[in-house]
């Protein structure tokens, strides 16, 4: 009950919480404790990863370590292999050389992907669509309850009996997020999940992403075209160029972050210039 209440607080709560009276600080400390207890993220190590399609060498040796629970954003020009890297991490494709390890044996339910398209089943109600995310636990007795909890987390509890076709683009994407979260994944990979949304919906979705990440402590890997989104959300931004990680930029700004602050803007500027110089070379 407590979780449900807390997660339905308005989006603005994150940004303005710092200004609250001590009462609010108590809630915040509780939450951080809980987060540590819940840190379920998995670390991810990639060594010498290579992948080609026919005669097109897309990834030419990726070396990367992501500590458990980190939020990493991946940027790079179109066609540089961001989606390919994500699909490899999620186990959707095979690679020629290198290794990907999570430090221990993982269950399929531990790793989830979210795409730019919501990929909801049009013939299943919203709640049933979220239940799909339970994987092998779909038919267990508490499936309904777990799906409902995930729907509440993404703020769509009242839409549980709707068909997906009546939802807005942002709502569909939130259902897809609920579906990805319902199995309590330990690694969550996002492939431009907000790419098709309008600016305002995007910002509210970014806040939602940050909030569920803070609540659940999974390791987040976000592929995005939007550098300002990357610096607003991530602990670390990776720039991919010519099949390798060309830049690895740490974002130290404290959370909750203030959008458009000078610190973030200058980081954004330097990452953009990396991207543009890569663009100029081609």
């Amino acid at each position, binding site marked *: 009950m407590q979780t449900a209440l807390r997660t339905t607080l308005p989006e603005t709560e994150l940004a303005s919480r710092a200004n609250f009276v001590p009462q609010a600080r108590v809630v915040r400390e509780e939450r951080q404790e809980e987060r540590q207890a819940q840190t379920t993220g998995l670390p991810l190590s990639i060594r010498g990863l290579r992948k080609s399609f026919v005669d097109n060498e897309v990834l030419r040796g990726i070396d990367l370590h992501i500590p458990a629970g980190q939020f990493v954003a991946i940027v790079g020009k179109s066609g540089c292999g961001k989606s390919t890297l994500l699909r490899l991490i*999620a186990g*959707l494709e095979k690679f020629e050389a290198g290794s990907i390890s999570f430090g221990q044996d993982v269950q*399929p*339910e531990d790793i*989830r*992907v979210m*795409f730019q*398209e919501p*990929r909801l*089943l*049009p*013939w*299943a109600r919203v709640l049933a669509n979220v239940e*799909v*995310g339970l*994987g*092998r636990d*779909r038919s267990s007795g508490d499936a309904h309850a777990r799906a409902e909890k995930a729907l509440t987390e993404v703020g769509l509890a009242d839409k549980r009996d709707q*068909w997906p*076709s*009546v939802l807005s683009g942002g709502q569909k994407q939130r259902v897809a997020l609920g*579906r990805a979260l319902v199995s309590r994944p330990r690694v969550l990979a996002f492939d431009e999940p907000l790419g098709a949304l309008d600016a305002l919906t995007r910002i509210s979705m970014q806040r939602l992403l940050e909030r569920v990440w803070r609540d659940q402590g999974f390791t987040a890997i976000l592929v995005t075209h939007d550098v300002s989104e990357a610096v607003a959300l991530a602990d670390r931004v990776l720039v991919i160029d010519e099949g390798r990680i060309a830049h690895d930029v740490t974002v130290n700004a404290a959370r909750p972050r203030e959008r458009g602050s000078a610190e973030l803007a200058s980081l954004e500027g330097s990452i953009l210039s990396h991207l543009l110089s890569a663009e100029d070379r081609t």
Partner: protein
Amino acid sequence: MSLIDSVSLPRSFRLPRVDGLIQWIVPLAIIAIWQVASVTGFVPTRVLPAPSDVVLAGWKLLLSGELVRNIWVSFWRASIGFLIGGGIGFAFGLANGLSQLSAKLTDTTLQMVRNVPHLALIPLVILWFGIDESAKLFLVALGVFFPIYLNTLHGIRTVDPQLIEMGRIYGMTDSELFRRVIFPGALPSIFVGIRFALGIMWLTLIVAETIAASSGLGYMAMQAREFMLIDVVVLSILIYALLGKLADSASRVLERLTLSWHPAFQKR
């Protein structure tokens, strides 16, 4: 989908209560005009009997039990032929849509057979089965087979691959994937096949019954022609039309029930 959306009328144009009645205005008007034309002698009854005469003929046949028996025989042939042909078509559609091997093995052959108009087989079928029940069932089943086969196959092959990938990512087993993703995705197309097949079903049955039968509506019409009972001939034609409409309505109801998720079927 966008095509369907653009076709459906905006709210203000709909008259929900009268909706069901509106479609009957034109047929009723035609019957009224026809009756007037017959009574005034504008259309000679030799050419076309008055609707009242047709109804009268129907009433007589109904009392003698002949009408019900013939309708029942035709209805039985249509349903059994449809179930056999549709069932086999559906099975092949599933098999070839889901299995590459099965498709390679049988699809080309089936596509070749499809190009033979099934009614052209009537002489051969009479030689094989005589004018037995099996002749009619065979023809109906053959006619119904292809629309259902083709549309089931098409439906399964065009299920959104992104949804299938999603199902696999979320750990669906093959049977679960079929039940939750592939079959519901193919259903709209399968219904298109069923509607086509129902049309072909009646057409085949009419032809088969007029040529080679000793009972049924088509046979009743042919008998009446020999005795110059034009009212019975017209009656048979009208009953065929009515049965066709009935079958179509039944499939629409089924469609509405099973495709309630589809934007085209949602109450506006």
